[in-house]
């Protein structure tokens, strides 16, 4: 009852250890904040939802890869993905993502390491705040820029933990804090594209915005810039799919060359933040943490659930404060949105496969590089638009209409690409134009 509550509630936590800006080990923070720490540890749980969560598949550990459990392979679930990414590391190994506890291992042991990877990878898979500061003798940005340039194996030696308390919190106030230079620069560029200049996120962001920004340090599209392998979020023209593609086209960036078609392609990666910004929830001020870290009662305490996971596994707390529908109904609403996204995603995938076949055929038939170039550019566009939704992990929920709009445009690009190859040999069709 409320009276008891008040008693207990008086001191929500006990400061048993002194935390400093160099305390990296979450276990130490856990001494002061046992409730958050216990929840944080739960991210090892693996539960599957219709389109999310993850399966826990046992495997026999090897010297090279000691993991005894991994998540299901997406490229085995849908082999079309191998053809889409042919020639790129993702065609070797790409799995469903799982909880934060695994981020460092999954990166260290992914089959993609077969291709040499830079230290930059570390930014989003480890507790890097202290490491970056150390490497830069106190200068966070300098240290980060150095670690980016190390070979992965070297950088790996500098970190011990997956994302930890210090990566999201100020050790003295516990306030949220942005620790990733790439996001500081990225969000400033995005704001600038919206007319807001000199944006300093840790100074200018509201508390509510920070509840999404801490996530947006990693759950975003990115690329490595230049020799320095600098981590950059491509938002200078805005963060809608067309803005990002325009940005890449302008600087002439490509992630890889498609093995079968020779097209210079882009790999989209987990643009959760970007898609969310186009949705009704972002518009309504609903933050990532509202759904993925909903407040939860533990005894008399009300804390943010640090067991970050699919809200479908926690509908009551994640959704029902705002939506007074039964859990089953809310689940069905999400799955309806996701199934619709998935059905058009499959059409877009088939269209891209057809374009790749036609391009292969045309190359084989010795069509001039000039003609090929046009179709290859269509592949670049279709691939990036489709991948933007495919790589985004909510299966469209974060912005249902926008996700499907993007897939519709991807279909148009793929099919136009096919036409561009065929038209040339069909005078009458072009004549009719």
């Amino acid at each position, binding site marked *: 009852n409320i009276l008891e509550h008040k008693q207990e509630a008086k001191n*929500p936590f006990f400061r048993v250890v002194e935390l400093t800006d160099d305390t990296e080990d979450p276990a130490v923070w856990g001494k002061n904040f046992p409730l958050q720490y216990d929840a944080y540890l739960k991210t090892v749980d693996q539960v599957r939802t219709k389109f999310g969560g993850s399966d826990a598949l046992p495997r026999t550990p090897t010297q090279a890869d000691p993991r005894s459990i991994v998540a299901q392979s997406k490229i085995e679930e849908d082999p079309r993905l191998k053809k889409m990414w042919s020639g790129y590391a993702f065609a070797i190994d790409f799995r469903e993502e799982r909880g934060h506890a695994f981020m460092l291992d999954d990166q260290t042991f992914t089959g993609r390491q077969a291709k040499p990877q830079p230290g930059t990878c570390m930014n989003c898979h480890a507790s890097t705040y202290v490491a970056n500061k150390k490497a830069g003798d106190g200068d966070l940005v300098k240290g980060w820029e150095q670690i980016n340039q190390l070979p992965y194996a070297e950088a790996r030696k500098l970190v011990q933990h997956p994302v930890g308390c210090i990566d999201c919190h100020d050790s003295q106030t*516990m306030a949220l804090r942005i620790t990733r230079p790439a996001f500081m620069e990225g969000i400033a560029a995005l704001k600038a594209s919206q007319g807001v200049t000199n944006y300093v996120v840790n100074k200018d962001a509201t508390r509510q915005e920070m509840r999404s920004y801490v996530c947006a340090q990693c759950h975003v599209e990115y690329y490595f810039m230049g020799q320095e392998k600098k981590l950059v979020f491509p938002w200078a023209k805005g963060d809608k799919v067309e803005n990002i593609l325009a940005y890449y086209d302008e600087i002439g960036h490509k992630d890889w060359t498609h093995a079968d078609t020779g097209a210079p392609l882009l790999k989209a990666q987990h643009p959760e933040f970007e898609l969310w910004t186009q949705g009704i929830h972002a518009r309504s001020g609903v933050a990532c943490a509202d759904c993925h870290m909903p407040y939860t009662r533990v005894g008399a305490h*009300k*804390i943010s659930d640090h067991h970050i996971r699919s809200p479908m596994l926690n509908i009551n707390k994640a959704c029902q*404060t705002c939506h007074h529908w039964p859990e089953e109904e809310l689940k069905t609403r999400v799955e309806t949105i996701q199934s619709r996204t998935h059905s058009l995603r499959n059409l877009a995938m088939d269209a891209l496969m057809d374009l790749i076949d036609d391009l292969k055929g045309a190359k084989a038939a010795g069509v001039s590089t000039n003609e090929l170039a046009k179709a290859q550019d269509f592949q670049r566009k279709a691939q990036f638009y489709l991948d933007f939704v495919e790589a985004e992990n909510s299966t469209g929920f974060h912005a249902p209409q926008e996700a499907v709009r993007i897939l519709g445009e991807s279909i148009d690009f793929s099919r136009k690409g096919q036409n561009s190859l065929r038209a040339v040999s069909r005078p009458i069709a072009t004549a009719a134009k």
Partner: protein
Amino acid sequence: MKRSTIAGVVLGSVLGLALGVGAYTFIYAKGASYLTNDPKACVNCHVMQEQYDGWIKSSHRSVATCNDCHAPADFVGKYSTKAQNGFWHSFYFTTGKYPDNIQINERNRKIANEACRKCHAEIAEMIEGPANKHSAADTTSCIRCHRNVGHLH
């Protein structure tokens, strides 16, 4: 005449009239009881019936009255707010110039939002963390998630 002067004259006469009807309403519609803490004071206006009905069904009916959430804690703030709201409510009600779906204005939304902390200070502290480096203006909005606790909308 300059725009501002016209505006001035218009405003003046409107207020004059308003004071009249306002006073009339206050007596006729038991407006005086507006100054008490009794929720019934609010439903003297059928306009408030919807919220009253919602309040009766709410988790707060037995713990918080309208004024606990809609009037600032401090005495002066409380009565000046009630004077303002009371006057304008009377004015709008009498003239019938108010929207069918009444929307809380920013000032009163802030008051309602801050009211939560009068009773839930610990909770507020818990979820905002031990120390709040953010400005007082930038606190967690409770009604973002709990807009229905006082009365279902």
